[in-house]
């Protein structure tokens, strides 16, 4: 029981997928212009993460090792399609706001990374808890980032006005450069608080199933 609790909290703080492991950068920067989009993306990815972790932990003995990555991707893509349907039916505004980043959950390396690193090595319950913990960690990181960006960039939070009308919001924060800037500063802040060195580029991707290939490519195939 204690062990399961540890698995669950691991993803929220110690190994927060976004701010500590620096995975899933694309959706993190793209959707955090508004708090509602950030939370929506977080919940959608969490749902996919839990379901795919459960299914992959049940199937990992059947899936041959050499084709495991394509198999994982098919499982994940199936759940993403289901989530796409759900969002389109119950939150059409969110569906339009997330746009192409909703189907792109398929290639979010948090999900594939957890399938490879955790679900394919652990039991069903632990994998489900890991998925939930990582999903909550991802959602919280998106929530914090989108809070900063929406308040500074649009002067609102969840659509409610926070800064007075007379104050001109810094539109840059709602645009592309603001996404990179806030993300970089958040990682630095977390590193400062936890007194750990921030992830080096490349090393930070150690939870990514392609980290080895990526490092090899970065060295031009020599390493």
């Amino acid at each position, binding site marked *: 029981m204690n062990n399961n609790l540890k698995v669950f909290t691991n993803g929220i703080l110690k190994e927060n997928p976004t701010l500590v492991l620096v995975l899933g950068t694309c959706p993190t920067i793209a959707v955090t212009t508004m708090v509602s989009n950030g939370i929506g993306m977080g919940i959608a990815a969490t749902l996919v993460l839990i379901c795919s972790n459960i299914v992959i932990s049940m199937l990992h003995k059947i899936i041959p090792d050499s084709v495991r990555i394509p198999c994982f991707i098919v499982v994940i893509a199936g759940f993403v399609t289901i989530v796409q349907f759900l969002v389109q039916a119950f939150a059409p505004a969110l569906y339009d706001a997330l746009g192409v980043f909703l189907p792109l959950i398929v290639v979010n390396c948090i999900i594939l990374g957890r399938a490879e690193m955790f679900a394919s090595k652990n039991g069903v319950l632990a994998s489900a808890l890991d998925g939930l913990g990582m999903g909550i960690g991802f959602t919280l990181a998106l929530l914090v980032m989108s809070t900063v960006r929406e308040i500074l960039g649009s002067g609102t939070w969840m659509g409610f006005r926070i800064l007075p009308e007379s104050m001109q919001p810094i539109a840059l924060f709602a645009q592309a450069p603001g996404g990179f800037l806030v993300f970089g500063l958040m990682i630095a802040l977390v590193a400062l608080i936890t007194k750990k060195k921030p992830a080096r580029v490349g090393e930070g991707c150690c939870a990514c199933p392609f980290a080895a290939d990526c490092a090899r*490519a*970065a060295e031009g195939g020599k390493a």
Partner: protein
Amino acid sequence: MLKEYFALVFGAILVNNIVLARFMGICPFLGVSKKMDSAVGMSLAVTFVLVMATAVTWPFYTFILKPHGLEYLQTISFILIIAALVQLVEIVLKKYVPSLHKALGVYLPLITTNCAVLGITLSNISDKYNFVQSLLSALGTGLGFLLAMVLFAGVRSRIESNPDIPEALQGMPITLISASILAMGFMGFSGLVTGLFGV
């Protein structure tokens, strides 16, 4: 007509740059930009696969999925097509063009899960581009990725060798902050295509 095509390619390179304005393909943008030659190799591999993937997914959607009302299978079928295509490209290059395989082979395994490839093939469909427009948008996107990678590899080589960066900012944070400044530069291109081509 020709003017529109030019506008599409230039827009994809400068205004809607895949990394700096559309936030796709950030993993390779950060991970493979340490050295100039690997940045160029990765970008060329991405461009190649992007155009090939578009050439397969667009007809597949238009002639197979759409007439049968199977549009909802788009995500799952596109990712499978891309995965199979990357494997196929690798096998074909290895057998018939070993020199190209030597240059690009190391980057190919990273491309299946590169969100730029899936993202562009999906948005070509949702933007209702025709076949030629889709191919051009894929080509422009690939070239835009190349431009961003080459520029950033130059910036990175300066950052990596700078010892004065505060400890908490070293590594990922300073890389993201410099990407932010690069993105700010690219914002200056907005309106360029309208101004140049008037479309």
